[in-house]
């Protein structure tokens, strides 16, 4: 069902302003069998990320003698969307796996682990627009939790255009019936862009504004990520005091 208007009196359907993010909750180290893990809730998105390795890459021919390879696997659960999603990799999830792998690879110090692979599994349990941003953000926290050396903690956020107005972090209706969607991932320390995709149409001015708003959103999410990582070690202090 398409709503008549996506913005009413300057407020979006869920009551947010143009530059407000949805609610984000991040928890690190939730899975015991993985080397590192993270659970993330971003609005209605629920995402688990698990990291394994670095470990020797198999089969042998995929090894790189100079650096580690990063294998991210993005997967949506059959029950994550309204109509049942046919399980298994499809065109969309293969693409997202590839772009997330490349974004993460840029931040990991891969040259420390020649011939190895770092495997990242991203499972989307519940989807509500912006799962690739949520998946990448969760994967970054899981990598830190696994103790993998990194030059930066990547973070992602989207911006877009709805009812002719540029807004940050699109919700489900906004994504489905909006005019454009621009997910980006950055390395917050350097400001380097790790991922940039666009769906729909934007003018140059709109693109620039959307880009700036998404970067601003990334910075906010980055703070939440860092807090979530530190949280794991705060509980230890409390026990002692």
């Amino acid at each position, binding site marked *: 069902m398409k709503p008549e208007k996506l913005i009413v009196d300057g407020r979006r359907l869920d009551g947010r302003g143009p530059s407000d993010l949805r609610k984000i909750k991040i928890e690190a180290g939730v899975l015991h069998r993985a080397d590192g893990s993270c659970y993330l809730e971003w609005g209605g998105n629920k995402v688990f990320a698990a990291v394994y390795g670095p470990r020797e890459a198999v089969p042998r021919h995929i090894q790189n003698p100079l650096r580690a390879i990063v294998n991210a696997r993005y997967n949506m659960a059959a029950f994550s969307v309204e109509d049942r999603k046919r399980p298994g990799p499809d065109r969309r999830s293969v693409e997202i796996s590839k772009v997330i792998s490349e974004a993460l690879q840029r931040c990991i110090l891969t040259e420390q682990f020649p011939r190895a692979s770092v495997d990242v599994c991203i499972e989307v349990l519940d989807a509500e627009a912006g799962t690739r941003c949520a998946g990448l953000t969760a994967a970054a926290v899981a990598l830190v939790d696994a103790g993998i050396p990194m030059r930066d903690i990547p973070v992602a956020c989207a911006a877009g255009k709805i009812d002719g107005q540029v807004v940050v972090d699109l919700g489900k209706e906004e994504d489905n019936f909006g005019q454009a969607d621009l997910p980006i991932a950055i390395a917050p*320390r350097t400001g380097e862009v790790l991922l940039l995709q666009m769906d729909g149409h934007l003018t140059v001015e709109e693109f620039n504004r959307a880009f700036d708003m998404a970067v601003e959103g990334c910075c906010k999410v980055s703070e939440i990520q860092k807090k979530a990582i530190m949280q794991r070690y705060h509980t230890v202090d409390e026990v002692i005091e």
Partner: protein
Amino acid sequence: MDQKTRHVVIPSECLGDTGNSRAGRGTFIDHGKIYSEHLGILTQEGNILQVVPLKGRYNPIPGDFVIAIVLEAMQSSWLVDINAPYPAVLHVNEAPWEVEFGDTAKYLNTGDSLLARVLSVDESKKLQITLNDRNLYKIKGGNIIEVDPSIVPRIIGKKGSMIANIKKYSRCRIFVGQNGRIWIDGPVDGIELVLLAINKIESEAISYGLTDRVEGLLREHAKDVR
């Protein structure tokens, strides 16, 4: 620095300037600034900044004492797992026996455990271990547990104070490998005591004064002390 807990840093956290400090292990330099490379504890020795990892894989260094598990017996060598990202090779020349070509499985086979030393690590991280040294041999009996390699220094303690305490109160024989594997042999209640102590060290690894607290715990639970 806080007296009670150590300073925990996360990757890409700025630690200082190259002008007044030097970058040690676990750090990298970018545009004249020193950054942490992984989640760990910041330590400063003189003007050298180091980050000791809190989690992560074992990074083998030549000379490390490790507990290895044999994966496969090959024609003139064994493939062993030392908990590193890569399997290590134990060549027959590095074993204390006269092994005929193809007879490797007579001496060591899949699943056997060894006390070994890391012999070499080359630039593509090919690992070699050796058994040709004092106190290196195949393990018979006992139990092996695994902990995070980053807390091994805490289990050993300053000049071995922590491990000496654990041995004293539990009456167990213990070997701690740098790769996070610990071999324990002794009476059942002694082993339980060791596990109790190691669990406490694991959960409070980043705090100060741990040796005293663990000794208190051991004294409370120990049956008799030699």
